[in-house]
C-alpha cells in the first residue's frame, strides 16, 4: 500500500512539474504586447524597455524559467504583472470558493451515481433504460449550459437561491450552502452520469459473481448482500472513473463560476487570461493541477482501502 501510494505521489509530482513547464513554455510565447498593456499605449520605448527589464522578460527563456521554478518550488508563485499582488495571495482568496463547489459537486456525484447506478442495475427494465438514456445526455451536455438552466430557473425565476455571489463557510454555513448548491449541482451532472454507468456495469458483473451466490446460500438476504458486498466490490472501478471525471469538474468550474458570479480560481484564470497576466494564469494552472493530483491521491487511498489486494501488498 505504502509503495503503491508512493508511486502515485511521485507520478503526481512529476505531472505537476511537466504541466508547469509546459504552461510556462506556452506562456513565454506571449509577445511584448503584454508590456504595452501594462505601461499603456502612450509609453515611450524607454519606459517599455524598463518595464520589460523589470519583469525579467529581457532575460533568456531558460533564466526566466529557472527563476520562476526556483521560487515556485519554494511555494512562491510570483506577483501579478498588473496589480503587484502576490499570486499566492490571490490563489488563497479564490481557492476556497472553487474547492467548495468542486468538492460539493464531487460529493453529489458520488452519492447520486451510486444510487442511480444501483437502481438501474437492480431494477432493470424501463428504469434501467431510462437511466442509461439520461446518462448519455448527462455526459454530453456541457456543465455551463446546465448551470445556465439552473441559474435561470431557480435563481432568476423562482428566486429560491441567490443568483450570484459567494458566502464564506465561516461566515454563515447555511448561506454558504445556498451559494454553492446550484454550481455544485451543475458541475456534478456530467460526473454523476459517467460514474453511474460504471457503477451499474460493475454491479451487474458483481451480482453474477460466484461469491454472491454463495453469500445468498448462507441465508444473507438480497438487501444485505447488495449493499454490503456487491457495492463494496463494485466501488474500485467506479472510483477510477470518478478520478477521471474530477479533472472535468475543475475545467467545468472555470465557466460555471462565471455563470454564478463566483470569484474562484476559474474567474481568476479567466481575468488573468484576458489581461495577459502570466504569473497569475500560471499560478492558477499549477494550483488546478496540484488540486487534481491531491484529490486523485485521496481517491487512490480510497481505492486501496476498498481493494484489499492493493492494501495488503
Amino acid at each position, binding site marked *: 500500500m505504502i509503495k503503491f501510494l508512493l508511486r502515485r505521489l511521485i507520478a503526481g509530482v512529476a505531472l505537476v512539474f*511537466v*504541466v508547469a513547464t509546459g*504552461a510556462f513554455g*506556452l506562456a513565454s*510565447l*506571449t509577445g511584448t504586447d503584454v508590456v504595452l498593456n501594462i505601461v499603456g499605449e502612450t509609453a515611450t520605448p524607454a519606459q517599455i524597455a524598463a518595464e520589460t527589464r523589470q519583469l525579467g522578460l529581457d532575460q533568456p527563456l531558460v533564466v526566466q524559467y529557472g527563476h520562476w521554478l526556483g521560487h515556485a518550488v519554494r511555494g512562491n508563485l510570483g506577483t501579478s504583472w498588473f496589480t503587484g499582488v502576490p499570486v499566492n495571495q490571490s490563489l488563497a482568496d479564490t481557492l476556497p470558493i472553487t474547492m467548495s463547489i468542486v468538492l460539493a459537486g464531487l460529493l453529489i456525484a458520488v452519492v447520486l451515481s451510486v444510487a442511480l447506478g444501483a437502481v*438501474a442495475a437492480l431494477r*432493470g427494465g424501463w428504469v434501467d433504460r431510462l437511466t*442509461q438514456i439520461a*446518462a448519455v445526455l448527462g455526459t*454530453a*451536455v*456541457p456543465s*455551463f*449550459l446546465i448551470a*445556465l438552466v439552473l441559474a435561470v430557473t431557480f435563481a*432568476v425565476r423562482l428566486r429560491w437561491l441567490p443568483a450570484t455571489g459567494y458566502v464564506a463557510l465561516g461566515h454563515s454555513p447555511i448561506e454558504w450552502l445556498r451559494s454553492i448548491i446550484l454550481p455544485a449541482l451543475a458541475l456534478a451532472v456530467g460526473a454523476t*452520469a*459517467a460514474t453511474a454507468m*460504471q457503477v451499474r*456495469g460493475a454491479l*451487474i458483473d458483481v*451480482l*453474477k*459473481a*460466484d*461469491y454472491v*451466490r*454463495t*453469500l445468498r*446460500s*448462507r*441465508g*444473507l*438476504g438480497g438487501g444485505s448482500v447488495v449493499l454490503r*458486498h456487491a457495492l*463494496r*466490490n463494485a466501488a*474500485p*472501478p467506479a472510483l*477510477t472513473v470518478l*478520478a*477521471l471525471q474530477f*479533472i472535468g469538474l475543475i*475545467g467545468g468550474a*472555470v465557466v460555471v463560476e*462565471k*455563470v454564478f458570479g463566483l470569484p474562484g480560481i476559474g474567474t481568476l*484564470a*479567466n481575468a488573468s*487570461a484576458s489581461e495577459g497576466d502570466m504569473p497569475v494564469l500560471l499560478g492558477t*494552472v499549477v494550483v488546478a*493541477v496540484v488540486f487534481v493530483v491531491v484529490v*486523485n491521491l485521496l*481517491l*487512490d487511498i480510497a481505492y486501496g482501502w*476498498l*481493494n*484489499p*489486494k492493493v492494501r495488503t501488498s
Partner: protein
Amino acid sequence: MTDSTSGAPGGAPLESIPSGGREHVLRRMLRDPVALTCLTVLVLVVVASAAAPLLTGYNPDTSVLTDTLAPLSGAHPLGGDGVGRDVLSRLLYGGRTSLIGGAIAVLVAFAVGGPPGLVGGFYRGWFDAIARWISDVIMAVPAILVMLVVVVTISQNLDIAMVVLGVILAPMVFRLFRGSVLAVREELYVDAARVSGLGDARILRRHVLPVVMAPSIIQAAQLFAVAIGIQAGLAFLGLGDASEPSWGAMLNDGFTNVYNAPLLLVWPGAAMCLTIVALSLLGNSVRDALGGGDTRRPARVPRSRRPAVRTLPAAVSAPVPTPVDAENRPLLVVEGLRVTYPGPDGDRVVVDGVSLTARRGEVLGLVGESGSGKSQTAFAILGLLSPPATVGAGRLDFADLDLTSLDGRGWNRLRGKRIGYVPQEPMSNLDPSFRIGFQLVEPMRRHLGLSSAAARAKALALLDRVGIADPERVLRAYPHQISGGMAQRVLIAGAVSCDPDLLIADEPTTALDVTVQAEVLDLMRSLQREREMGMILVTHDFGVVADICDRVAVMRAGRIVETASARELFGDPRHDYTRMLLDSTLEGAEPRPALAVSGHNEVTEGTR
C-alpha cells in the same frame, strides 16, 4: 489517477466490433426512430448553417441601435440581441462556427491520436510507453485552462484554439485505437496474416483499420459534441474573436440580459443542446446497431415476496406415499423438478423432471457429465436460480417445509441455517473485499443470534475443526492471502457453521490439487457422520462416489437415468450410460467406447 479505463466519454466500450454487414447496420439504424431523429436534426443544423446567407438577409455582426432587444417580429423572427444584432442570423452563422470548430477539433484529434495509437498498440515497446505517458499527462490537465493560456498567448482566433483542443482530445482517440489494435492483435488471424508474409502496413490496413472504423465513428460523434461544448464555453467566457458570431457568445449576451430578454438564452441554448444531444444519441445508436453497446442485463436479485420455485401440477409423476415413520422420513423429497432458460429458439430445458430424495445421515451422489444439469438441480433445490431461469417442481419438500411456497424471507431463514452449500471453485466463492472472519461470522450472527465475540469464537473452533493450522491468522486474512485448499476448508466451515440438516456440495474437490482432494473428501465425510447430516454430493468423478456415497443418482441431459445404492451401482449398473461412465473412469478400464450409447427415448425413469 488509478488504472486506465476505456477512455471514451460515456464509457464507450472498446471491444472489437464485427466489421461485416455494414449495410445491414445502416438499415437497422434507419429503422431506429431515435437514430433517424438524430440524423434529421443534424442534417437540419448542417443545412441551415451552410445556407445561412440564403435564409437571412442580415449580417450577423451589424448592430442597429434601434433593434436592441427587439421583440420577435416579421423583420427579426427571433428578435434583436443586446446590441441590436439580428438573432436569427447570429444563430445560423453561429452554427457555422460551431460546426467548423467541432470538425477541426475532431480531425486534429484523429490525426494526432490515431497513428500513435495504431503503432503503439501494434508494436508496443518504448514508443507505446512514451505515447501512453504523454496521453496520461494531457488527460490530467483540465482542457479549458490550457485553452485559456493558448487563446491568450497564441491567438484570439477560436479556430486555432480548436486545433489545440484537437490535440487535447487526441488521447481519447489514442486510447481507442490502441485498445482496438491490442484486441485485434490477440486474434489469431493477424498472426496468420503475418505468417503468410503480409507486411505490417498491409496488416494494419487490411485487418486493423476495419475494426477501428466503427468505434471511430462513435468516438468522432462524441468528440464533436465535446468540442462544440468547450468552444461555446470559451466564447461564453468572452474569449475569442468578438466579431465572429457563435452560440457561446450569444449565450453570453443572453446571460447579460437575462432579466430583460430571457428568450435570448433559449435560442443558442436550444441549438447547442439539440446538436450535442443528437450527436451523442446518434453515437449511442450506432453502437447499439453494431451490437457493441453495454448489453449486460441486470442480474435480478429475486424480490423477497416471489416464490423461487413454482408448483408444477402437471409434473407430478408417480406420487410417493409419504412415509409416516418419522425415523425413515426423507429429509428432502424432490419430484418432477424442471429448470428452463429462455433461448433464441424456444425454452431450453436443462433439468427435466428430476426426482430424488435425500435422507438424514446418508450421502447421495448426483453423478453425470458436465452439462448434464446436476449443478442446476443443486441450485434449484437451494432456491438460488434467478430469472431468466424458471424453476418448477411437482413437489419440493424439505423436512416439514414445502419449498415451493417459500418467499424470499423464508428462503433466507432456511438457507445457511438448515441447508448448507459448498461450492466448486473455492477462490471465486469468497468475497475478495472482506476478511474471512467477517464472512464466517455474519451468517452465524444472523441465524444463531450469536454475539460478535461468540460467533468469532465459534468460527475459530470451526476453522480448527476443518483442519486449518492457524485459525487466528486465517480469520484475519483476505481470501487472496490463502491457498485454494484452505479456501475450500473455509467454505466447508461456513457451510456447516449453523449446523444444517442437509449439506449440498457442488463438485467440492474438482478445483483442488489431487493431494488436497482426498483430505477435503475425508473432512466432509467425517463432518457428515459427526453431525448426522444428509448430504447431496454433486460430482462427475466415480472415484469420489466410491469413496463416500451411500446412494447414487446418475444424471444425463437433464434427467436421472438410474438411482441405486453405491454398492449396487458399482456391482451391477443397469443403465448403458452408467456403464459407459463407469468404464471410462475406473482404472484399468477398456478403451472408452463411442459416446453414442442411448438415445433420448431409451432413458429410463429414475428408480427409487
